[in-house]
């Protein structure tokens, strides 16, 4: 019995940590930039497609993740350019990039691709040699924990730099950024790049964890990311730790909720329905959307 519980907890943590990386990206756009960025629905699978194809080509799986991040960042930059330079509304800019990426992702991966038996950051000869078989079940969750903590500290660190201050300022009051003689559009583009870099990285890690790339993994990524951000920042509103930590916890809590829904008898084909329902419940409970709608009206 205990073993089963531990197994469940580990699988929730694994899923939670992967999506936490995505959620950190969504945190940048939704909370810091106040930009509803739908492009993550395309950049998450983009990162996955890129990672899978690079691994199949024999590239080091860690290097593949760098490229995943980079590809997401470039796509995010395009969303930013469409919004800032061509003055397309924020929501539409994201939809354009998301839609375009669907085809691009299929072009890159050519369909659903498996990387079973290939070396990944989770399964490789080094771990086989170093880690005893009894601990095999903990490898993924440990690696994911290290990655998410690393990314969180990186983001925290960045937000405390001068450039990070400017990023926070542009979402808070863009007039001030202009007053500081800085181009607010450029700051937004940088923010969208970083955010989608996180999404791309999350996708790359996700595909390495699951051992395959599937075009549909991206559908609803934005909702999972948003739900994690809203759960985390609302539940832990008064907590002493940083919002980035709250977002990570939010992603884990969200995945736990999904697990509970499935345990209660929902089928996996009901996934999106569960996601949508959970998201609605979270929005209503947290009051987040209503406040935003009002302040923007």
């Amino acid at each position, binding site marked *: 019995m205990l073993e089963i519980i531990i197994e469940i907890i580990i699988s929730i943590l694994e899923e939670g940590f992967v999506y936490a990386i995505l959620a950190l990206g969504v945190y940048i756009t939704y909370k810091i930039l106040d930009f509803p960025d739908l492009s993550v629905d395309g950049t998450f699978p983009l990162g996955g497609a890129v990672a899978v194809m690079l691994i199949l080509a024999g590239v080091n799986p860690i290097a593949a993740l760098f490229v995943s991040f980079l590809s997401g960042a470039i796509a995010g930059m395009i969303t930013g350019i469409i919004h800032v330079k061509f003055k397309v509304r924020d929501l539409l800019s994201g939809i354009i990039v998301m839609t375009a990426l669907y085809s691009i992702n299929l072009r890159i991966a050519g369909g659903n691709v498996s990387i079973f038996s290939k070396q990944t950051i989770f399964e490789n000869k080094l771990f086989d040699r170093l880690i005893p078989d009894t601990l095999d079940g903990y490898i993924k969750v440990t690696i994911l924990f290290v990655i998410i903590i690393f990314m969180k500290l990186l983001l925290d660190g960045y937000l405390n730099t001068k450039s990070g201050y400017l990023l926070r300022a542009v979402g808070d009051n863009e007039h001030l950024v*202009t*007053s500081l*003689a800085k181009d607010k559009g450029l700051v937004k583009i940088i923010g969208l790049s970083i955010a989608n870099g996180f999404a791309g990285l999350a996708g790359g890690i996700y595909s390495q964890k699951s051992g395959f790339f599937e075009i549909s993994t991206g559908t609803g990524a934005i909702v999972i990311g948003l739900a994690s951000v809203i759960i985390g920042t609302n539940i832990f509103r008064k907590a002493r730790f940083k919002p980035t930590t709250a977002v990570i916890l939010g992603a884990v809590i969200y995945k736990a909720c999904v697990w509970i829904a499935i345990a209660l008898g929902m089928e996996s084909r009901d996934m999106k329905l569960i996601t949508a329902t959970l998201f609605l419940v979270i929005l209503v409970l947290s009051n987040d959307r209503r406040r935003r709608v009002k302040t923007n009206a």
Partner: protein
Amino acid sequence: MLELQNINKYYNPGTVNEMCLFHDFSVKIQDGEFVSVVGSNGSGKTSMLNIICGSIPLDSGNVLIHHEDITNMPEFKRQRKIGRVYQNPSMGTCPNMTILENMSLADNKGKSFNLLRGTNKKRIEFYRDNLRTLNLGLEDKMNVPVGSLSGGQRQAMALLMSTMTPIEFLILDEHTAALDPKTAELIMELTNKIVTEKKLTTIMVTHNLRYAVEYGNRLIMMHQGKAIIDEAGDKKKSMRIDDILSKFNEISIECGN
């Protein structure tokens, strides 16, 4: 020196609502002048500031700073030499960032926003001393988000932040209008102190005729895109509120209201 040359500005061009605000409007503002600008709503006061700052496009005409044409320079680039305080106290600060973070941002104007630490620890005492001059107790709330401060406190910070780095021009857009009379008084005195100390060329739009008369060394009254009063020096000093009021009445009668 700041110059507006032959400015033409239409609103809603090509529609039935087309309105000509400025027709061949020119004004020169000398270095060290503190200009108060008054006028009724829609007279072009704020539009003039927006044209100087590049916030709205021009139909024709030129904007010059020290004889350099900046008409096509984007808004954010012009701000290197300009500090601006808005009517709305929340426009000059970041509400979700702390006082310290806001001061650090302002302090970095004109420098690179790179990957160095956002707040320079060595500057904290300097910020504290700066805040102390406001007499609002903000120096003891350095880690409080600015959003939790009152409008007056925020406006005082906005003023401090916009003048922290070396600028040449200070643009004040009805910056006391949203404040209660006592706080407005405080902000106005503070403004005068900063302008005098830093020898800033200042343009202040205000609806408060007393401020317009009491402060500054030049007074402009705008009406339908023209400067119908423009007095400096001794003539400005001898002006009384009643003089401006009677002019106001005169133009109101002309307009038929």
